[in-house]
């Protein structure tokens, strides 16, 4: 469908794209990915001649783009940009309609097409067609941006970091939508991003670029399993596969667990637990030395016999603790072996440092695998 043959783009001495050759088969969604300045956007914009190559040639269905009229060429190619770029002076309908209007479609057909597209993504045409872009959220606007690119049924679509400016929730839902659109429509799509998660999620094939060159072309699966070199591995793996980095127990603990002093009254203790939504609190003295723990159950049972929290600590089972110098692995093992619900972390003076719970372990693992974005 699209073929790059020895394409070079340089600006004076700066080479943006070096001798790029690449073939994109019909119906595939190909993601160009790489760090900023790697030439991915330049490569994309050479396809619709917003940027002209310095040398080499680009073919779309065996026609050299340099032989075509750029205006006519662009009307045959859908285009979505990061800044969305809906025309604020036009309604949603007029925005989606731009290319069909430029191509001179009859009014009836244009209207039918707009409605059909809006229904396809679940936006009621009666409600949204007469609105203006400023009345829509960012996610809705870019949804229209994608429909606008699809309007004239182009065989090829270019997307330049289309979801980069959206909030994570809108981005996620637009990715899902693009994926399902792609499965239904099978448009050849070239998609630029610097977000590896996005690439792995959407791509039939990923093209990793660095410093103007293609480093690896592979399916997401192959890319994860066999990165071509150190650069690709580091680009994929930055936050993805470094569970090994969880060395110390302090990396998997909550640094500020709920604590009480022994003098605290029982009723207050119960109220505190309710408020913080925990069923057990740790008891520490003024020096933060760990004395024991108290569960809501014990508090309730002993409330006739005792006044202060300190008095009922002895009724609790003895506390298993771990020293802060221990490794995360030792903490995992201890929790599994002893079937613990929680494990306080103390220092050499028996002062409380933190608390490992099953939740805190899951959180630490999640952020090691998927990065810190979830927090």
């Amino acid at each position: 469908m699209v073929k790059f043959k020895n394409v070079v783009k340089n600006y004076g001495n700066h080479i943006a794209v070096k001798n790029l050759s690449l073939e994109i088969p019909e119906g595939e969604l190909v993601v160009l990915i790489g760090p900023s300045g790697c030439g991915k956007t330049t490569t994309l914009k050479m396809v619709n001649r917003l940027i002209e190559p310095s040398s080499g040639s680009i073919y779309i269905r065996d026609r050299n783009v340099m032989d075509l009229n750029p205006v006519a060429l662009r009307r045959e190619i859908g285009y979505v940009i990061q800044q969305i770029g809906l025309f604020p002076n036009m309604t949603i309908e007029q925005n989606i309609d731009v290319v069909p209007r430029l191509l001179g479609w009859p009014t009836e057909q244009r209207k039918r097409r707009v409605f059909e597209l809006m229904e396809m993504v679940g936006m009621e045409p009666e409600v949204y067609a007469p609105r203006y872009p400023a009345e829509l959220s960012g996610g809705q606007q870019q949804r229209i941006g994608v429909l606008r690119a699809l309007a004239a049924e182009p065989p090829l679509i270019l997307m330049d970091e289309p979801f980069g400016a959206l909030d994570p929730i809108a981005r996620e839902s637009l990715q899902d939508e693009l994926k399902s659109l792609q499965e239904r429509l099978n448009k050849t799509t070239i998609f630029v991003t610097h977000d590896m998660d996005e690439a792995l999620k959407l791509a039939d094939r990923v093209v990793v670029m660095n410093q103007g060159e293609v480093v690896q072309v592979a399916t997401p699966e192959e890319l994860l399993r066999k990165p071509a070199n150190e650069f690709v591995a580091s680009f994929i793996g930055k936050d993805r596969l470094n569970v090994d980095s969880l060395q110390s127990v302090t990396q998997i603990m909550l640094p500020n667990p709920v604590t009480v002093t022994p003098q605290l009254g029982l009723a207050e203790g119960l109220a505190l637990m309710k408020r913080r939504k925990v069923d057990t609190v740790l008891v520490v003295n003024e020096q933060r030395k760990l004395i024991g723990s108290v569960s809501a159950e014990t508090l309730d049972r002993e409330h006739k016999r005792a006044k202060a929290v300190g008095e009922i600590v002895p009724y609790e089972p003895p506390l298993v603790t771990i020293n802060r110098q221990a490794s995360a692995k030792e903490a995992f093992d201890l929790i599994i072996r002893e079937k613990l619900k929680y494990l306080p972390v103390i220092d050499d003076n028996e002062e409380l440092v933190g608390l490992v719970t099953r939740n805190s372990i899951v959180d630490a693992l999640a952020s090691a695998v998927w990065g810190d974005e979830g927090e």
Partner: protein
Amino acid sequence: MLWLPQSGVMRVSDFLKFMQMNLDSAVLATGQHLYLSFGSILLGMMIAIPLGIWLTDKEKLAEKFLAATAIIQTVPGLAFLGLFLPIMGIGVLPSMTVLFLYSLLPILRNTYTGIKGVSPALVEAGKGMGMNPFQLLVMVKLPIAFPVIIAGVRIASVYIVSWATLAAFIGGGGLGDPILTGIQTADINFILMGAIPAALLALFAGWFLGMIEKMVTPRGLRG
């Protein structure tokens, strides 16, 4: 009642009587004034708007044009009329020429900055979807820049209407005529007969073009 140095007390009723007697010449002067000022504004729009559009992709040249019109702006009105006197003589034509030159700067500057101010993302989107330069101008750039352009016309109109009183000095007519007569004969009635309609005209022009500015703002761009 107003206190005036020479004629002593002046009554509003006296002025109204004076206006009744001179209504014909007041109307004539106002008509001339409208013709002078709006003729030059129209001429200014016809030149400055296309010029501003043409200059948007010629930044270096645009700077020169804007500097030149800014220099015109700094020449005092009276001096300008004096400068044109030997070249164009007296009458309506030299007056209009001077006023036209004054209207250029705000209209040209607002056209240029209005179109330059259209977000590059919109220009790229339009281009990327296959608009040719003319379609990009008509479908995107002009509608978005239009309120800014009209604001320039409004600024120009308000002061051209008041500066048009200077035309009387070189026989251009208009509301400057009674003002000049009033100054020469120390008659406040004549001065007011020119000054009041001139001020009202300026206010009206500002209000009217403000309305148009609101009307031409695309609905999607209204705050």
